């Protein structure tokens, strides 16, 4: 497309003037407690950004010409100012894509959402039927999501997205997910499970097996042009021809995360002090964090291939996902825990149990230790 071919990926790795893909988790509050939640959400954090602070961040993003933001949580619709913030964002030329479990999309809200421009919605669903989904996302969450989809379809929202985190249990359902999305005229989005947040505790049981990695790759090669992936499966590129999309880790280079209390992290999968670049409340705001933080500057330097340097597949897989390595206790300059060459499995065996870093924050709701007495009937 260019008049003079350039190595785009190399240039992107050295960073952009503003992020392409900015995720903003509006709240840690959530009506669900998914076992793989990246942000260990549940309870609202009292330090949450106020409406005015959030709008100030949006002003900054407008000035930086951020084209769109990905809003998540927690459950973002829990915030009372949710619609105010979305309308303010869109009114300032920042398109919004938000992820939701659908609990609050009743018929009225669906109509309101359908009337808005530059708004995309992702409904999370991790199983094509109740048993598979609810085992991960909690009792009642499947019905909740399907009801929201029905309401959006009835309101004429148009092509919303169904967002699936690929696990060991739903790999066999990929075709069925596609059929479900097609039945709604929706777009399917599948992304990689990361061992972040509560996912750090459940990843070992939930992540796709080595054999399934090949299945996912083949399926994406066959359907990739019509399925969104957030370019999250580039570690699979070592299996053959590259998947569509950007083949690189964008953390701190083209993507970042703003969390509910304004902390800025390199990506949505690394909510940990080691990957915290600053806070939007600091002097200079988000712009200064993006442009000048020491962490982001170091991520924009050429990265070492480390233990993967002698592997012929490194150019294809780029060593995989930084977050996946970090939270499984692997060195960042070594193989991804899901390395398709099997190097990750070997490396995981050398990790001392319990030595992997723990997420810095946990907003999981406290477990009710005293059960309500069961009334005899």
């Amino acid at each position, binding site marked *: *497309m*260019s*008049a*003079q*071919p*350039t190595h*785009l990926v190399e*240039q992107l790795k*050295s960073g*952009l*003037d*503003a992020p*392409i*893909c900015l995720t903003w988790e509006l709240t840690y509050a959530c009506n669900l407690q998914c076992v793989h939640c990246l942000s260990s959400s549940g309870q609202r954090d009292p330090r949450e950004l106020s409406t005015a602070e959030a709008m100030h961040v949006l002003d900054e993003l407008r000035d930086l*010409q951020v*084209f*769109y933001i990905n809003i998540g949580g927690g459950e973002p619709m829990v915030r009372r100012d949710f619609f105010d913030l979305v309308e303010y964002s869109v009114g300032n*030329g920042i*398109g919004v894509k938000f992820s939701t479990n659908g609990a609050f999309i009743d018929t009225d809200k669906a109509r309101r959402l359908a009337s808005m421009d*530059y708004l*995309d919605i992702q409904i999370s669903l991790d199983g094509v039927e109740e048993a598979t989904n609810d085992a991960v996302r909690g009792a009642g969450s499947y019905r909740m999501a399907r009801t929201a989809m029905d309401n959006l379809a009835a309101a004429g929202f148009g092509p919303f997205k169904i967002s699936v985190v690929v696990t060991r249990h739903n790999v066999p359902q990929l075709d069925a997910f596609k059929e479900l999305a097609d039945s709604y005229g929706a777009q399917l989005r599948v992304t990689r499970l990361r061992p972040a947040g509560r996912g750090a505790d459940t990843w070992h049981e939930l992540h796709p097996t080595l054999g399934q990695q090949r299945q996912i790759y083949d399926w994406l090669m066959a359907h990739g*042009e019509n399925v*969104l*992936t*957030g*370019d999250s499966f580039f570690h699979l590129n070592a299996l053959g021809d590259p998947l*569509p*999309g*950007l083949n690189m880790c964008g953390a701190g280079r083209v993507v970042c995360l703003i969390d509910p209390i304004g902390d800025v992290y390199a990506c949505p999968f690394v909510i940990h002090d080691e990957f915290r670049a600053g806070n939007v409340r600091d002097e200079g705001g988000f712009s200064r964090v993006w442009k000048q933080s020491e962490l982001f500057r170091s991520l924009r330097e050429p990265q070492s291939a480390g233990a993967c340097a002698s592997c012929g597949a490194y150019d294809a897989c780029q060593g995989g996902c930084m977050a996946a390595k970090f939270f499984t206790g692997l060195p960042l300059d070594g193989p991804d825990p899901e390395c398709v060459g099997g190097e990750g499995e070997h490396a995981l065996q050398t990790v001392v149990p319990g030595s992997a870093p723990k997420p810095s924050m946990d907003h999981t709701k406290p477990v009710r230790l005293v059960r309500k007495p069961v009334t005899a009937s």
Partner: protein
Amino acid sequence: MRGLLTQPVAVAVALDSRLELHPQVAVRPEPFGALAYHYGNRRLIFLKHPDVVTVVNSLGQHPTVAATLDACGVTPERWPSFVTALSSLENSEIVRERPADAPR
């Protein structure tokens, strides 16, 4: 970020065609050139050369593609590659034919 790097084969734009930046597209300067985002179809496109950015931003101010290239100082031997780039951009709706009633 689907479809960032590969563009379907497009019909070549003619040098005498009258193009403009699509009104739903925003162009953000970057060290390598610019990012173009189409708010309607949600496509994000990399403009990987500063000269392409200049041309794309100037299309609406000149009567034809040829006049734009000339005005932007693009030497004739480079025109074919710009035609290819503009064809691809028209296919992604980053640029479009000016409406017939637009002023000349």
